[in-house]
């Protein structure tokens, strides 16, 4: 069973905090959200896959099974880990709250 901690979609202040410093450390309130987001089933979990060491990463989803390769999402390529964290944060925000993250 995944974490039950609710994410309040009105707390865009916390989303802004993440976008400004995606690698952390985070405030306690933001860390609760991040922990909720990271606590997913292994199968389908978003991970980064090295395309060029220390320079370029693709987004992928784990199979969760030994011997079964991950699935690379070919359209998602990042040249910084920070940008990748931001992108996955957005995806998970929408998945969990049901509404896209809108920051002006």
């Amino acid at each position, binding site marked *: 069973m995944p974490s039950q901690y609710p994410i309040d979609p009105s707390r865009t202040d916390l989303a802004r905090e993440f976008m400004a410093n995606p690698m952390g450390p985070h405030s306690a309130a933001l860390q609760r959200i991040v922990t909720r987001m*990271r606590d997913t089933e292994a199968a389908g979990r978003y*991970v980064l896959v*090295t*395309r060029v060491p*220390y320079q370029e990463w693709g987004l992928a989803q784990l199979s*969760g*099974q030994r*011997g079964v390769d991950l699935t690379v999402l070919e359209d998602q390529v990042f040249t910084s880990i920070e940008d990748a964290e931001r992108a996955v944060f957005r995806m998970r925000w929408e998945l969990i709250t049901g509404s896209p993250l809108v920051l002006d």
Partner: protein
Amino acid sequence: MLEKKIAGYSDEISVAPGERIRFMVSCEPGVDRYQADIVRLISGDHQPGGPGYRDELLPTSVSGEYPGRVQETYYGSYAVVPHGPAFDGLSSLSLQASIFPTLPGLRRACIISKMDIDAGRGFALWTDPAHGLVLQLGDGDGGIREFALGRPLVAREWYLVNATYDAANGEVHLRQRLLDSYARDTSSGESSHSSDGTAAVGCGAPLLIAAASREEARGKPVGEMIFNGRIERPVVASRALEPGELETLRYGPVPPSLRSDICAAWDFGQAFETDDIIDISPNRANGRLINLPIRAVRGSNWSGSELSFTHAPDQYAAIHFLDDSLYDCEWDADFELEVPADTPSGLYAARLRSGDQEDHITFVVRPPRELNGRGDAGDRPGASLALLIPTASYMAYGNARGGMETGNELLSNHLAVISPEMRYLNDHPEYGNSMYDDHNDGTGVCYSSRLRPLINIRPTHPWLWQLSADMHIVEWLEAQEIAFDVITDEDMHQDGVSLLERYSCVMTCSHPEYYSTPMWDAVHAFTQRGGRLMYMGGNGFYWRVAYRDDKPGAMEMRRTEDGSRSWASEPGEYYMAFTGEYGGLWWRAGRTPQSLVGNGFIAQGFDHSSYFRRTADSHDPRAAFIFADIDDEIIGDFGLIGNGAAGLELDSASRAYGTPPHALVVATSEQHTDAYIRVNEDIGHMLLSIGGQDDPQVHADVVFFETPRGGAVFSTGSIGWSSALFHNDHDNNVSRLTRNVLDRFLDPTPFD
């Protein structure tokens, strides 16, 4: 996308000058040739801002091009009993065992077999996902007859299963009985069948337990359709025994009235510390275990009255077989090195290169085994410092699969980054698991071996852990131009304290976590006889492990009652089969890390590292040499792992856990994140405040204390310490402090 395509291993991990070491290599299709060279490793971490990879070529006859090839690995555990007189002339048959299937629904799995498939002769007893017990008998004409009981087995329950065939009347009986008692059990039952014509149950094929086989490779049958779970007291008889007779064969000696009918009855409650399985019938049809199935596990009759297999071997007469265990890849050697006699001790590798492919099969050239024995200068090595490479811990972590299988995202508090090396390992389940993984059936991995490629134990692996992190120490020693010999856990296990006593100072690596009893004894004796020990990491001297003299390269460990651990041993299975010793935390065997090195494991976290602050103790005159020319209050607010010297796994001092009363805590870390959490063995009741921001126990201590006869111990308290040595071209307070300590520890002047 980058892909890894080449990997190998060596038959030895530490060789002395003049000795030989063989290297085995496997290449993915498409890698037709590779260049091999022997190099001395100088530096490994090639992240931006890191020292990069550096080596130094050792001119040897190895240097050259070699053909690439795929080498097969046969994994999974089973037993082989050669064909012999015990099985001659079989016509009727009884088979029996107690079984504890762990994956009965996965696929058909073989309990016992002796089958010549081409000739259609022999027998095999199986579990089948849909039908439960299945008996196969050869028809003598190239075919096989099959009889199924028809009731699926329940996972992780003990059953008594047996099958009989009477050649006189062609009757076949199958029985499976749940040994526990549940209401509404539908898995127990029996079935009777009539064989259509005479079966041919005798054949010259070897007998296998927990597997069937169709072919031989490397001189032994290749096990297939391997049974996952426990098997106890398998029996083969040459007559269709009655149920009452079969019942008497479950335990104890073979009854005199049945001796003439029994071909073999194996008692797995003997010879625990070996690969032998012992037949207690007069035939003595003993066999051998392949690929390290787990011994000293509870049998069907375990009562809980004894917790050690040595006290009640009859309650531990089961073996746990696994379809993914591995001892030795047994690849053919690609090349061999005779270490030149004048080779200086050091950390070396066979460097393999082909296009963008690279691998490093790392090994140690240790100092000569024999000194001249005269006690003169020839008995002193060139170096006064020895770097102790923690090969036991390398083996424990070797081929850790968690990063690829789960992402470990809650541990790191960051997105997982999957490297080509991790994908390669995931593509090769046959390379076996680390001691942090589960087997396919969910059983924790309690044996490891170095006779296989250990994909993450490489100097350049992007996960900076064990060898790749220890390269920071090697790089620093090289930059300091300090002469040092290199020795390994296995050398120390074999040679004892005499090896350490060749040196003024012994320096550990960043995470020497796994220790055998002889290893612990050697380090302790060294500190008590005037030696100087620099413990350069965190969470050291923590788990107890065992080696077996007749099983080179294998290691055992049990994750017992507590400890920070990825799985837990079953109750009653805390004693190691290799030695009979109690496994688990050294603390639970009465030896705390704090008593040995002044601090011990207290917390771990993997997002951001922190820094140390000097304490009042640091101004004690006894500690003055440590802080010579260091004015800073804050130590190590930088580093290549998490940007701090206090990171990953942290050790703290504790009088209660055995820190010597006169020890000085000269620096303490602070401000760890909430991803740093106190270890469970230090927690009684669970409380909200176990994270770094709330729990003052979540910190590392740098400890110094003097030992008898002028010796001393210095402990950094943090795996992250060595990652800070390189900062600012080694001009930083962690480097300076470490150098201060090392200089004094190499100075023969006794400590008061």
